[in-house]
């Protein structure tokens, strides 16, 4: 009996896992004696999706980029025949002795997985799978064998710090909420993963929803709360669906509800869907949104541990933080401290994306260097291009240049570069990425997501955006750099919440490391990376153009000339740089230089 596992996270589905699953189901149903078919969440190898795993004979074998045709071959030869298909689809495996093989060996073997322990391994819709993997044993231990003080002490001893970005010690936060009295208390899970370029929490919710639920119940016991909310963004429909099923099955098994496991402790929880506002990732804005209001941040203090949701003491952590908790309770604080650094123990999940060769999820001990993440695990830069920078922390973060690639990722080292740890999004940039344009991109984001409460954030970000826009158009003024610096300081000083206080970070870090690029735009009207359209020429590549005339027909100013089946050319005098030729070309023959 062999088990077929299809990776059905959002990344797998968008790469085409559904038809593969449907075909395998037809095949599996024809031979119920020989195999079982199940699903899993994302194992992190998003760059090779859709993934199919065959378990059996003591082995686990992963196939990548599986199509319906290759799925059939895998079924006939491996599932029925017992011998793995040795072709380019076989990317990773673990044999009966625990040895690993395959070309993606380095991607998974160099990771150490606590948060992602079950992602890609268990069926997220099956509570039995989760229990078989040791799930809810932490909860049993916490409810039946530990006092709230002992739970908090264990979390404190583990040194777990909030994985949402700020890195506040979790045990300490819990002790505040536990120490405050209230008629009710709440546990809130921030699953409003809004940072563009971050998808760790989505993968955890889709791949292992019970870990988050278990962590929240343990937190409820520790601080004396009876109700929990998971605030999840509406852009993650699959995560919401799996969470709902997980909550239902946890309730049926008696892990949620009254008198859980006979301990006398009762806990219930509910999902609240976000409605599309980045600022709701800020905890006080998130509470306002759960309360049904406009998601505007509130003044702190009073802090949530004192007066949070509906003015009751509340503990708020993000998805990854809660997912760590059951492991810590089960395995003990010492075991958790054995990985990571002195001040940032444990592991951190990073979402590798952008120009990195192997985009996906990587969980590594804190203190691992950026170089190790991008090159050893991530396989370096796509198409052999030059590594330029990584962007960490999303719109609140900053760019860390290539020459600082030996920086360890932990809560102490990253802020020294001017970036922030953030929630774990790591967008890799190559030589073709313009840093002024990236700063403009982030300011455009924060400007439109500013809730408008604080003047400096509302108007200051708009002024910064206007300056950056004119620089990328080649119309920058000599005094613009000084203006950007001044506005950055003012916005940071005078904003109430994290959004405004960090909005200038992308500009400040790019000014710090890439001042020359700003100068080139302003003084020489050149974009060194060749990205800003107003400052580059559009060129047709001779070796790629097949002379289909499509670009010439689409050009609104008739700047393109050429005969059928002959290489076309663009008249730079006439060209208005609208980009229509690039989007219309089916051969990738039009490029910006």
């Amino acid at each position, binding site marked *: 009996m062999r088990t077929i596992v299809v990776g059905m996270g959002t990344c797998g589905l968008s790469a085409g896992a559904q038809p593969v699953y449907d075909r395998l189901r037809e095949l599996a149903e024809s031979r119920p004696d020989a195999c079982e078919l199940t699903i899993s969440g994302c194992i992190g190898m998003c760059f090779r999706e859709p993934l199919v795993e065959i378990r059996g004979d003591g082995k686990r074998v992963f196939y990548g980029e599986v199509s319906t045709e290759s799925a059939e071959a895998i079924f006939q030869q491996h599932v029925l025949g017992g011998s793995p298909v040795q072709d380019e689809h076989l990317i990773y495996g673990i044999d009966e002795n625990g040895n690993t093989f395959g070309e993606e060996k380095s991607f998974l073997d160099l990771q150490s997985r606590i948060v992602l322990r079950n992602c890609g391994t268990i069926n997220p819709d099956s509570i039995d799978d989760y229990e078989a993997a040791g799930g809810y044993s932490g909860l049993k231990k916490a409810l039946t064998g530990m006092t709230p003080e002992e739970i908090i002490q264990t979390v404190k001893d583990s040194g777990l710090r909030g994985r949402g970005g700020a890195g506040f010690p979790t045990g300490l936060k819990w002790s505040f909420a536990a120490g405050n009295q209230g008629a009710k208390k709440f546990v809130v899970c921030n699953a409003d993963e809004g940072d*563009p370029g971050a998808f760790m929490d989505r993968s955890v919710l889709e791949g292992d929803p019970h870990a988050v639920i278990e962590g929240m119940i343990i937190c409820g016991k520790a601080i004396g709360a009876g109700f929990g909310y998971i605030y999840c963004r509406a852009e993650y429909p699959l995560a919401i669906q799996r969470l709902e099923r997980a909550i239902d099955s946890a309730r049926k098994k008696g892990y949620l509800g009254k008198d859980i496991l006979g301990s006398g402790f009762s806990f219930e929880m509910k999902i609240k869907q976000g409605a599309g*506002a980045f600022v709701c990732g800020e905890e006080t804005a998130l509470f306002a949104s759960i309360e049904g209001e406009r998601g505007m941040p509130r003044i702190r203090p009073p802090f949530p541990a004192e007066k949070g949701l509906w003015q009751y003491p509340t503990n708020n952590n993000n998805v990854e933080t809660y997912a760590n908790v059951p492991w810590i309770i089960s395995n003990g604080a010492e075991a958790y401290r054995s990985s990571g650094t002195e001040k940032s123990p444990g592991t951190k999940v990073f979402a590798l994306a952008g120009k990195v060769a192997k985009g996906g999820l990587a969980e590594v001990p804190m203190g691992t260097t950026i170089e190790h993440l991008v090159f050893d695990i991530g396989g370096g830069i796509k198409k052999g291009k030059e590594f330029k920078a990584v962007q960490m922390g999303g719109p609140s973060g900053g760019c860390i240049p290539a020459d600082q690639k030996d920086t360890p990722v932990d809560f102490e080292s990253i802020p020294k570069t001017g970036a922030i740890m953030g929630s774990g999004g790591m*967008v890799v940039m190559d030589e073709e990425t313009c840093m002024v344009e990236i700063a403009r991109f982030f300011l455009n984001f924060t400007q439109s997501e500013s809730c408008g409460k604080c003047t400096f954030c509302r108007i200051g970000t708009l002024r910064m955006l206007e300056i950056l826009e004119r620089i990328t158009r080649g119309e920058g003024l000599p005094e613009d750099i000084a203006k950007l610096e001044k506005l950055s300081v003012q916005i940071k000083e005078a904003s109430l919440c994290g959004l405004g206080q960090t909005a200038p970070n992308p500009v400040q870090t790019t000014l710090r490391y890439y001042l020359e690029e700003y100068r080139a735009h302003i003084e020489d009207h050149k974009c060194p990376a060749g990205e800003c359209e107003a400052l580059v020429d559009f060129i047709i590549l001779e070796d790629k153009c097949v002379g289909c005339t499509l670009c010439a027909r689409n050009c609104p100013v008739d700047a393109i000339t050429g005969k059928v089946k002959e290489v076309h050319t663009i008249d730079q005098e006439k060209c208005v740089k609208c980009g229509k030729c690039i*989007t219309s070309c089916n051969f990738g023959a039009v490029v910006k230089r």
Partner: protein
Amino acid sequence: MKTAAKKESFSYRLWRYDGAPGELIPLLQSAQEHFGYIPRRAISYISGATGIPESDIYGVITFYSQFRLKPMGKYVIRACAGTACHVSGAKSIIETIEDELGIEVGDTSEDGLFTFLTVACIGCCSLAPVIMVNDDTHGRLTPASLRKILKEYRRKGRETTEGAAI
């Protein structure tokens, strides 16, 4: 947008409303699911049931990008404009959609088939650039592959006449 939320009808949710706090946003989400957008009369119904002034409800609707005050097309295209997609060519994807459908971001096509929006991040960064059409995600796009996908939806949309907006 279709989500996994309990498929209770909008009218049932209104009837069931018992004054519990924090129900405004779920009610609005339910209205949007029912009508495809939030019509003027839905605001009146909600205000009547909850006692929340219509002006406050309007304030909440306009704060969140999910809520729409105008009808949406049968297929809602959300082009990801997140960081990873941005550095992987989201701009040419957005321009291709605008070109192909003849509408700009925020608009609905005249035949009522497509509404085009951008979204900050779908969380499929490793498959960038990405779009979502209703609840289906399409990744690793190029202008050419995107045009194929759009043509397919247009064909499907014109063939099937049944089914309300989204």
